[in-house]
Every structure is written in structure tokens, then in C-alpha cells.
């Protein structure tokens, strides 16, 4: 079964790029525009990995991570946060919230796949 990823970003450009790259590598990709929608997607579907932006309206990425980690069935789901320019404090925020790792924007396709495979390898 293909691994399934939820890409959360308020920018369609970013969602498109993440989805394009991962789909090309055989992933199923779900998309959500912000944390609130991500939670609603995840309430009905399970995923193997969540990739989320930090700065989003309605619910930001750090809050999303925190909320997911509070749910028993998301305790061991890897969550990657997308950060721009690798701001240390943002990374630390994400880590404190329970994120598994991070990807710095802008990303190259192979780097994205590398990181995704690192935390969510194929079975």
C-alpha cells in the first residue's frame, strides 16, 4: 500500500510542489490549507506522515503539531514542519510541540524525498 502523506500549507504553490514531488515518488498525498482543515482531514483519514507549514491562518503549524500529538492515534505519526530559512527558534518551537523533523524552504525535490524517507521509509 502506498504511503500516504498530508501536506498542510496555506500556499497552493507549496502544496502543489510537495504533492507533485511526493506523488512522483509513489506517495498518496492529501492536502489541507491550514491546521483546522488538516485536523478535519485527519479525523476521517489516516496518514503515514504529516508535512506542515508553520505560518498559516486559523491554526498555525506548531499548534497543529501540538494538537495531533495530544491524540493517541497520532503519537507515533511522523510530522515534518516546513520552515523558511531554517529559523532556529521556529524549529525549536516545532520540536517542543512534538514535530519529528523539519524541512527548510525552498526545497529541492530530491531533498524533500530524502527527508521524507528518513522519517517514513517504505515498507
Amino acid at each position, binding site marked *: 500500500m502506498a504511503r500516504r502523506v498530508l501536506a498542510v500549507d496555506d500556499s497552493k*504553490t507549496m502544496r502543489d510542489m510537495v504533492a507533485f514531488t511526493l506523488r512522483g515518488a509513489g506517495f498518496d498525498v492529501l492536502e489541507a490549507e491550514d491546521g483546522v482543515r488538516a485536523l478535519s482531514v485527519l479525523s476521517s483519514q489516516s496518514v503515514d506522515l504529516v508535512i506542515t507549514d508553520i505560518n498559516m491562518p486559523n491554526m498555525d503549524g506548531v499548534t497543529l503539531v501540538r494538537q495531533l500529538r495530544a491524540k493517541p492515534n497520532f503519537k507515533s505519526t511522523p510530522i515534518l514542519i516546513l520552515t523558511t*530559512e*531554517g*529559523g532556529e527558534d521556529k524549529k525549536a518551537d516545532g520540536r517542543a510541540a512534538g514535530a519529528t523533523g523539519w524541512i527548510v524552504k525552498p526545497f529541492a525535490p530530491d531533498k524533500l524525498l530524502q527527508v521524507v524517507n*528518513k522519517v517514513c521509509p517504505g515498507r
Partner: protein
Amino acid sequence: MTTGGQGGEYAQFKATFFEECSEILADLDGRLTRLQSEAIDAEELNAIFRAVHSIKAGAGAFNLGSLVGFSHTFEALLDWMRDGRITQNERVATAVVHAGDVLATLVAAAQTDSPVEPDFGADVAEELQALLDEAGRRAAGAAGAAPSATAGSAPARPPVTASGDARDAASDRSETPAAPALDAGITHTDSLTCYRIDFVPRAELFRHANEPLLLIGELQRLGTLETTLRDDRLPALADMDPEDAYFAWTFELVTDRPQSEIAEVFEFVDADCDLTLAPVLPAAGEDADDDDADGWGLFEPDAQDAEAEAGDHDAEPHAAGAEPSPTASPAAATRTPATPEAVAAAIAPTARPTASGAANAAQAKSSVSSIRVDLGRVDRLVNMVGELVITQAMLAQQLQESHGGDRESIRGSDELATLTRELQECVMAIRMQPVRSVFQRMPRLVREVSAKLDKHVRLVMSGEQTEVDKTVIEELADPLTHMIRNAIDHGIETPEARIAAGKPPEGTIALSAAHVGSNILIHLEDDGRGIDRERLLAKALAKGIIAADAKLSDEEIDDLIFSPGFSTAETVTDVSGRGVGMDVVRRNIVNLGGRIQVQSQLGKGTRFTLVIPLTLAVLDGMVVAVGAEKYILPLTSIIESFRPDKGQVSTLAGGGDVASIRGQFYRLVQLHRIFDVPSAITEPWRGIVVLVETASGEKIGIAVDELLGQQQVVIKSLQENYDPVAGISGATILGNGRVALILDIENLTRLPERPAGRRADAGRGPTARPIDEPADVPLALSA
């Protein structure tokens, strides 16, 4: 930057990015406008930050260097505003608003791939940087560090300047997909090295959903791995917490890879475990402190590179001392040398002098692309020019009357007229803005509404550059939004219905703007189902909007959609059809001095045309004479004028006259009765009836003596210069220096008319009553 890697693979998303940018910028525009006028709250600030942040992220993905550089500095400032390190004041607000303008221009330039001036926006970027630097120094001062310390030691150095750009540059480099680049700067050894790795996970590691097994798998890929499991921390079963971490590992890895690559494996977990990593037999050239630098080319490396480079830049002030820079002020030294450089790097790859004196000179020289001016000043200018136009007209007329044949004077007067007109146009142009800011909001609207209604709609826009007065632009958003909603809801059919009708499943809405004379024409055209006249008529009959025996032309039937409370929707959707209908749109447009027309073909589509004056400061008017008085009727509200036959005018039993045209009766308003004008024509059939339409679509006939011709007039507010007068929306001064009143058609019908023949005075001058004034005391209006 090569186009390899992501530039190539992700190029297909560029269009999406720019579409997103235009939405973001439109939204940003509104927020920045608010920022200028009021202190905004954290949420608003967050939204502004996000907007810039999104643009920067996308720009980074597409290697739009100058956009990344500028938005980075902009973002840094907003970030500091968010966390209170910079407080909003007028200077900050101005800088932010200017930055918004620069950002929009840079986006537009990137989109069209057109070059911008090398130092475009440099002044704004410098100002942003200056604000950051000042806040940074304040923080440094507050932290007790001597402000005269070298920049490198300042504890709260702003995140941008050189380091920001270095970081971008670093991330650019890291995009290069070739693996060797990752290890650039690290001495390589091909010889095998044995590393000993002690790895003791903490519970947090699991809470972050990291997995030791995956790490072990990764290590295995790097070389030959020997694994020892240490279970000495394992408690008795009864004491075991399933969420805690009890195992630890010791690895021995024999590999030809650099240590940094091993460290990378643990990058996500190094804060959640105790990790020691050291070569058992140290290899030459390996730097144990190198840690994870350049590891993924994705994470830490950027920041570390940046910090390394920032260090270099920070060191520069020392070096700058050796340069022929005359500035000795330590404060200047901490800032200036790095700043213009950073700015120049951010904006364009042009060399910029680093010495502060030269930098200032360059700044002074740099072309300022725009300035922001208090609207009040512009209004005053517009007013003054209005006076000038009037004075010029008066002079011209006097000249004509007194020196009929003096060629020199006439030529001079003509020249003055030309110059005045040009000046007026120039001044009006100051307030002109492209309609883009309104149009930009529409793609999103179309997408949202069509998604909600399960319709496929494509929006095609043209003429976004068409300019209109700022005051007009602000009034356009609501009507356009409403009309587009309507077009999608009522106009465009469902994909199934479209296919059944032999149309492509995707509907098209075309929005365009163009200048025609002193108006802007906005067309909104859809290829939907068109207006079903029979249904419309039936509905209008059922609602009692028209009489059962009314004979309406096709145009008049189409016009019914502007009737108050009229909705053609069969079902009320949550998109439209709640009773706020096209009547409101029409009212908005008419309030702007414009008009709206509809043309439709059943099954083919509907086209709305908005004709809107370019500015609210001048008006295209029809000058009409009533007795000795002159009044101005807004041209846009005039439908037609005619000289009625005696038989067309009838007096109603309760007083008041009506005029009938083509079987329809219209209320007749006799201006001389309302304003009590002496020696006016009292029998409408001896004068002219002008049929006008009010904002609500009501048509009335206005009886005047004669039409004198149309003319552009400068509107003067009665409210400000005199007193509000019922039935009058403003005044203007004609060429002969006389005041003419501009009729407020909306209110004309509500005014009491004096019985014909009764006259209270024979005063001179335009007569009108202030609203509160008793009707019997006519007042002469002083200009």
C-alpha cells in the same frame, strides 16, 4: 543560479505562485491601508507577516533573487513588529506601506520577467534595515552592552542585513543537487575510519515520533555497522512506563563518509538523546567539531553557513577602518558598511559603494519611484486647480466679450486654457490608481464561489492597468464582487447543463476595464444561460413590479433585474439571492455618478457594462436653463430628452403632473416650482422634458426651459461652502462666474412643489433653500 534541480522541476508551479501572489498582494493592500490609518492588532499583523512570508517562500522556490532578498528584510521587520521589538509608529507604518509597494512591483517584474531598475526599492530596503538596526541597538543597549561595541558582539543583532542575505545565498547553494557540493569545504578522505557512537534515547525521542530503528537503518547504509544493545536501564516489568525510553545502543561504524554525514543521521533527534560520536582512530583532515555542518543542505547547514558568513560581515567594520571611509562614528560603523551592501545585494547585483558618504550620495541620486503623500494635500491641490479652471474660464469669457478681436490676448488665453487643462489632468492623475487592486481580488472570489456551487468557471481579466481615481476604486469592489457572485450563481450553468447545451463544461467570465473619454468602462461578461425574459417578466408581474398590461421593450425587461428586491434565482443559495440584489449594485454605481447597463442573449450569456466617471471631483453635466437660472444635471442619469406634446402631459387629481412616453407614465418635476424660479416656462410642452433615472431605477421627467449643452464641471460641496440644500448635491461655477447648482436627482421627487403661479419673491441669483429654512424665505446663494 542554475536552473537545474528545482528551478526546472518546479517551474510548472510558477503560474500558480503568481496567481497566489496577486491575491496576497490585493489582500495586503487592504491591510496596509488600515495599518496607515490606525494601530492594527496582532492578528492583522500576523496576516501581513504571512503574506510577505508566503511570497518569500515561493520566490525562494523559483530562485527570484531580488524578491527573496527584499521580502526577507521586509519579513524581518514585520517579525520584530509581531514580537514587539519594534513598535508601530508613523515612521514604521510608512516604511511598511512603502515596502508593500516595492514588493508588489518586484512581484510584477518577476512575473513579466522584466528588469527593474538596479537600485529599485533600495531606499525602502535601507529604511527597513535602519529600523531593524535601531531596534537592534536599542535591545543591545537595554541588555547592558555598550552600544559602541563592535557589531559582531552586539547581542541582539538584527537577523537580516548581511547575514540574511548570506543565508539566502547559502540556501541557494544548497539547492545544487550534486552531492559533492554538500561537502564543500570539508577535507575529504577516502580512507576508512571507524567511529564509535553512543546513542541513549530519551523519552522525548518517541514523543516526537522518531524511531531508533530507522536511525540504525540509516547508519547501516553508511558503512559496516556493529550494533550493541544496552539494556542496563531496563527496569523491572512492573516499573516499566511504555512511553519511556530504556534501551541504548553503541555502534561501531566503519565508513569512508565524513563525520558530518553520520551526525546528520541524528539531526532530528540530537536534542532528544545523549549522543557521542567520535572516530576511534582519528582520520587526518576530519574535524570533529564539524558536526552536522553542510549535512543535508537542508537544515542546519543554511543557518550555520549564514552564521559563519554573518560573522565575516560582522567583522567587516574592522576592515572598513582600513578603507578610506571618513566616518569615525562607531554607531555608523556598526551599521553603514554592511547595510547598503546588503541592500544592494538584496535588490540587484550592482556594485554599491560601501563608504557611507558615497552611499548617502548614491541614495540621494537613486531614482525615487514613488512617494506617498497625505491625501488631504492632494485634495487641496485638486481643489485649487478646480478654482484655476474656473478662473481661466471666466477670464476667457471676459476676454471674448471685451477684446473680441485682440489676437495676442486670445492666443494667450488659448494657451492658458490648454495649460490649465493639462495641469488639471496631471493633478487628477495623482489620485489615479490602476483598477488592478480591485480586480486582483476577483480570481479568488471566482474560485471560492464556483467551488461552493460545484461549477467550473474561468475568469479572464484585461485592462487591469486602467486607472481610476482612488476614491472611485474603493467604491468599485462591492458592486463587482456582487456582480461576479451573481454571474456564477445565476449566469453560469452547472457543468452538466452546459454540456447538455453544447457548451464547454467550464464557463468563462470576462472582466475588463478601459477608458472611454472621461469615463471608465467596465465590462463583465459571462457565457452562461442569459436572461430569460419571459421568466423575468412573469416574475415582475407576480411581484407587482410592473403592471399587467405594460408593454416593455427587451431592454426594459432586462432592466427589471435592477428592480429592488428582485432576484432571478429560483432557489436562494448561500451565495446570492438573499434579496440584496442588483438594485444595490445599481445604487452603488449611480452614487458614483455612473450607470450600469445589461445586455443579454438567452442561452449565450449576459454582459454588464458599468460606465463610471474617472473621478468624483469633476462631473459630466448637462447645463439646463430654468428662467434665468442654470442647473446642472449629471449626464449619466439622463436617459433622453424630448419636447412633449400638450397631450402627453396630464395633471393628476391630487396635484402634480405626469408625462407619458410610449404608453408609460412618468412623474413630471417642474424645477421652477421646486426652486421657485421666476419667469420660467410654466407649461412643460413649451419647454423640454429630460427623462432621468434615479439610483433605484425610478424614472422621472424633469421639465426645464431649455438644454444649454453638456459641460464638465468642477464640483464644489455645498455642505462645506454653504449649507446642505434639499434637491441639490453640489454647486459649480460657470465660465461667467455665476454659480450653477447641481441637481440631486435622488431627492428631487421628494421635494414639495409650489403651486403653479405662486411666487414669493423676484430675487436674483440661484434660489434655493437650506433644508431647515422655512419654505417662504428664499435665499440667494453666495458663491
